């Protein structure tokens, strides 16, 4: 957005509570790699220049990449500046920070979708003596006590942490709710390549049938690893991870799991196959058949006949619970009436209901790719155009 505003000669400032790429520096576990391949992080006027386009950035590489971009575009960043509130003011907004106040006609909320880990209320019933971590607190298996681990949530975060912890010798039970299975590589190409090439990632928010639902879809079960391996539930079960249904409750120290595991897996397999059908169709239309590996379908997700419905946490040796149950944005500092009753921003493709206010980086904000680094450019181009005409009007 800064780059797009600069192109339009619009004076602006970027307020950053820490250093550039702060959340990548402070809120990620050590081994995490970006879920999208190197070539895919295309920012306005800037892209990948290394010799491993199909690799996935480590966190230090992500931090370097964003820091480099800030330097290349001479972004006017004020670091170590924490915004404490945004309020309506005469002809615009008053942005209060711990380094003084700013007055502005327009404001862009670019704090992202993942500020606060969502931990379900049932966490209150976890027996004493069991350690709990959110993905923001988890760094590596050395933090985890010897013994069993219950990982709650099987989207990208839960499956990756389950994999790492189980490999480190702490047997993992994985509670599986809604999730979306996806192969890392399909017909020899990265799944992200297919979704990019076939236009899936460019689908617009005003063209999908039910945008509220599309914005709630969990993250694809992808991992960025050196071997480009698929990390789905079958891969985890093969390692010895035990699958159970969605965590439904904890009563007298006993965790209760939903009997819906089979259907959750069936829904996920069906969704994956629909995506692969669309990819195959696109490949045929574009003359790729014969040039690339043939279409294939993956074995359905294996679920044991009677997955456990209960687990005596202490009795069965669970020492740690990881809450990989998603994140939500934090708007506690937004003192402008733009939130709905569920605490979500009311906006139309990033144009917030309050004139002159914009938001970026949310799930399916304007396009399916909006929450990816690669989605920021197109959204910034659109929203900066809207912002410029608002200033002119």
């Amino acid at each position, binding site marked *: 957005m800064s780059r797009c505003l600069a192109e339009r000669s619009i004076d602006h400032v970027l307020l950053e509570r820490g250093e550039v790429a702060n959340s990548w520096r402070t809120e990620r576990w050590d081994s995490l790699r970006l879920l999208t391949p190197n070539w895919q992080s295309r920012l306005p006027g800037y892209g990948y220049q290394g010799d491993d386009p199909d690799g996935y950035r480590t966190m230090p590489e992500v931090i370097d990449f964003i820091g480099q971009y800030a330097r290349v575009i001479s972004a006017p960043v004020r670091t170590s500046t924490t915004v404490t509130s945004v309020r309506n003011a005469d002809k615009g907004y008053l942005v209060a920070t711990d380094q003084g106040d700013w007055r502005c006609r327009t404001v862009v909320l670019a704090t992202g979708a993942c500020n606060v880990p969502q931990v379900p209320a049932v966490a209150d019933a976890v027996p004493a003596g069991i350690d709990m971590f959110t993905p923001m607190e988890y760094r590596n298996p050395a933090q985890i006590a010897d013994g069993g681990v219950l990982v709650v949530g099987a989207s990208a975060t839960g499956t990756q942490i389950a994999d790492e912890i189980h490999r480190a010798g702490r047997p993992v039970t994985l509670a599986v709710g809604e999730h979306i299975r996806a192969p890392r590589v399909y017909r020899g190409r990265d799944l992200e390549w297919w979704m990019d090439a076939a236009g899936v990632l460019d689908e617009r928010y005003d063209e999908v049938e039910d945008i509220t639902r599309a914005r709630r879809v969990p993250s694809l079960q992808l991992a960025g690893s050196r071997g480009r391996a698929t990390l789905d539930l079958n891969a985890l079960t093969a390692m010895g991870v035990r699958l159970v249904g969605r965590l*439904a409750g904890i009563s007298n120290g006993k965790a*209760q799991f*939903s*009997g*819906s595991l089979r*259907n959750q897996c069936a829904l996920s397999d069906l969704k994956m196959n*629909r995506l692969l059908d669309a990819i195959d169709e696109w490949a045929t239309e574009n003359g790729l058949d014969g040039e690339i590996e043939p279409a294939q379908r993956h074995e359905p997700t294996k679920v044991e006949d*009677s997955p456990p419905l209960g687990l005596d946490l202490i009795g069965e040796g669970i020492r740690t619970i990881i809450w990989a149950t998603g994140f939500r944005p934090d708007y506690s500092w937004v003192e402008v009436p733009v939130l709905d009753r569920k605490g979500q921003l009311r906006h139309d493709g990033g144009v917030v209901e309050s004139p002159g206010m914009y938001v970026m980086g949310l799930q399916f904000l304007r396009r399916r790719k909006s929450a990816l680094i690669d989605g920021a450019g197109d959204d910034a181009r659109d929203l900066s155009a809207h912002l410029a005409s608002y200033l002119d009007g």
Partner: protein
Amino acid sequence: MSEAQVDNGVNVEALLDARKALTAAPEAAQFKWRAACEWKNGTHSHSTVESFFGLGEEQHRSTKFNFDADHPEVFASEDLGATPVEYVLVGLASCLTAGVAAVAQHRKIQLRSVTATIEGGMDIQGILGIDSDVRNGFDGIKVSYKIDADASPQDIDALVAQSQKRSAVYDIVTNPTNVTVEVN
């Protein structure tokens, strides 16, 4: 087949309108479902279903529905009605089947026939108190659908999967529910 011809007898428009209205007024979405039960004799009881609360007010039906429940003769009962656990199976099968029709209508799939059989396994050592390690309820439930429709096998699988995702009884059966029983 043109979209206009798809008719499973489900008024999807009305359901979508209701969804829109209730999104705007979530308090009207608070419903109370009720049944009344009276003991007759032995294991025989008679239950009725009539009113419910919803859309902000008491709702009355034109018909009162009657249900007799009993145990079969192998339990030395008179077999004057289905057993309560069979009512649970009826509830689950009919909920999922209604869901199949609604989802099919929404997805513009014409159904020709939908039949389901449902079976719940139970080790009655639990209810008889013979073995405290055995639970009272079902140890598993299996539902089998036969569906004839203008759709691919994958689309039919997706119908059935989506119906489970949206089903009230499926949720009630697969997840714990707090139950309070009082004596007045």
